[in-house]
């Protein structure tokens, strides 16, 4: 081969490679299916926690969830420590399914009402109750009893619409990137309280306070179930709440997250209120008869500096309402 032939062949090979790359680039779809919301300015939720009140935890046993809630709040300083006059509060409930309250697949409506009532009593100027349910939102909020309970105490239920979502990217996140976030209900809010039941979950092993933030996502979020533990970790990064409330009065021990039978439930008579969502879920695991190692998302969240899985290190206040 002489020099002229070499250059000719090299030029042809280069042209072929360039054409192939151009064609591949033309076909390449950079954005994953579903979640991307081009055209909307990206948003990030602010930190709703109160620095001076971190690491507080109250665990109260008793059959009456209203009594245990009040006692647990009192144990960590009272609602007044967290909610001041004029605060605008968002309650993130679990209204995922259009199921009746007796199935405990969703946040108990009386608990929602009591938290909202206490917030107003502490001086909150507004209380918003929201979630992006799995099923039809109107049916979910109605059949779970949450809409009526919230209305009776003056809280405003905000159901998601297409316009309620803005894209968000979790800091350091690999999964939640440019993902639709139920953002509109957060506008003007300065305090966030997550309220979740304790449930078994077929994919993640458990659904408690950190998994509860899943209800703030839109799009084809079920994709996240493929890497559920990392997804829950990112959800916990996404939301830094003022407080979390984990209702273990009744625990869904099996067949979660939907359940369906009262036989799936067990009276565990425990209410947990804390500023540490990792510690709360770590304790909640015990109600399900599971260990932290069986729920890898807890350790992942702890490793990310979101809280401690060693809830005893917080010296939780333990009480009983008898």
């Amino acid at each position, binding site marked *: 081969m002489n020099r002229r032939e070499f250059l000719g062949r090299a030029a042809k090979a280069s042209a072929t490679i360039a054409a192939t790359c151009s064609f591949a680039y033309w076909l390449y779809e950079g954005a994953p299916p579903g979640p991307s919301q081009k055209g909307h300015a990206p948003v990030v939720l602010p930190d709703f926690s109160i620095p001076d009140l971190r690491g507080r935890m109250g665990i109260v046993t008793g059959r009456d969830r209203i009594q245990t809630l009040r006692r647990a709040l009192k144990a960590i300083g009272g609602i007044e420590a967290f909610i001041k006059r004029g605060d605008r509060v968002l309650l993130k409930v679990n209204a995922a399914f259009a199921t009746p309250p007796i199935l405990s697949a969703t946040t108990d409506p009386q608990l929602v009402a009591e938290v909202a009532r206490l917030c107003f009593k502490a001086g909150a100027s507004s209380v918003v109750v929201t979630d992006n349910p799995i*099923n039809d939102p109107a049916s979910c909020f109605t059949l779970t009893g949450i809409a009526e309970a919230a209305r009776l105490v003056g809280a405003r239920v905000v159901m998601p619409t297409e316009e309620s979502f803005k894209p968000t990217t979790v800091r350091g996140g690999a999964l939640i990137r440019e993902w639709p976030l139920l953002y509109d209900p957060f506008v003007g809010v300065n305090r966030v309280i997550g309220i979740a039941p304790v449930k078994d979950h077929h994919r993640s092993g458990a*659904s408690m306070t950190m998994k509860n933030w899943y209800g703030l996502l839109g799009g084809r979020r079920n994709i996240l179930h493929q890497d559920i533990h990392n997804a829950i970790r990112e959800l916990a990064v996404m939301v830094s709440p003022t407080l979390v409330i984990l209702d273990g009065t009744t625990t869904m021990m099996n067949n979660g997250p939907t359940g369906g039978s009262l036989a799936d439930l067990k009276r565990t008579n425990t209410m947990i209120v804390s500023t540490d969502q990792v510690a709360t879920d770590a304790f909640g695991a015990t109600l399900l008869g599971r260990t932290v190692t069986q729920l890898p998302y807890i350790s992942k969240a702890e490793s990310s500096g979101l809280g401690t899985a060693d809830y005893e290190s917080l010296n939780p206040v333990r009480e009983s309402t008898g």
Partner: protein
Amino acid sequence: MVGQPTKRETSIGFGILLVLAGIVIGIFIKQFHYNRAIIGGVLEGDTSAILTAGLSGELLVEMAEGMVALNPPEIFGPENLSDKIDGKAELYLSAGFLRLLCQRFAEASDSNSWMEGFVYDMGTMRRAFAVYSVQRRADAEKIPGMEFAYRTENALFFVHGRYYVEVIAAVTTEEMAEAMRSFADNFIGKAEVQGGRIEELALFPREGLDQDGITLLISDAFGFDRFDNVFIANYAVENVQLMAFLSIREDPSAASELAAAYHGFLMANGGVDVKSDVEIPGAKLVKILDTFELIFSHGKFLAGVHEAQDRGPAEKLAVTLMQNLSGVGT
């Protein structure tokens, strides 16, 4: 001057072309085996097929006779099942789920007294049994006259042919219990299905068997990713709890190969072979985590006893199981 390519160059060229052809064929085949949970979200749902399977929303209304429909019938396919049952969808998808038809109904006199019927079309009775059996509630009450059916305080669950049906109520009144039973009776009377039976259920020894506790594990049984379509059965023999397992494989060589693979899996996870005099050709007894695992194959059957506390009862149960399997064609 361009010389003729050597034989070596030609061979290398063909080799490269073959590799490229292999990649193309691989991609072509792989595209038919996508993960529905990931890709399903961007596909259009085919919700018409359930109507051609002899089941329609109108028929569901007939089944809830005397009640008032609270919403139109909803139909979900593999691509959007999670929109109804969230994280539990994986359980159904892995078992071969086809369609879900569901609707809520209330008593005419009280809209707060309502129930929801869920009809899962699983395609075959075996798959319907799989999702039924893994979700079976402990201490549930059997329903007389129905083979795979039970009820709890607020719900009723059963298999009818290819369908797995749940009827879940918001209240626990006697009237609602009757309405749920009526729904089930109507469903069985009106939903046409092909007859069928699950062969494995009759192969487990009867003595000490919890007949309602037989479960079909579709995949990953005992943490072994190659263990699919495994039936497990619980026994209580002389106050000893035991679990037998059974799986019908494609042919005898597949059964023996999988038995060997499972044995290898146990050994790789800390198991130790234990000498056994059990009279089953080729049987392996493994001690692992202070329990005993007995594995054997017989013809196309793969069987054994899982996590037994004592080897004696495990060997005894395995022999009885083997005798049952010997009585049928392999």
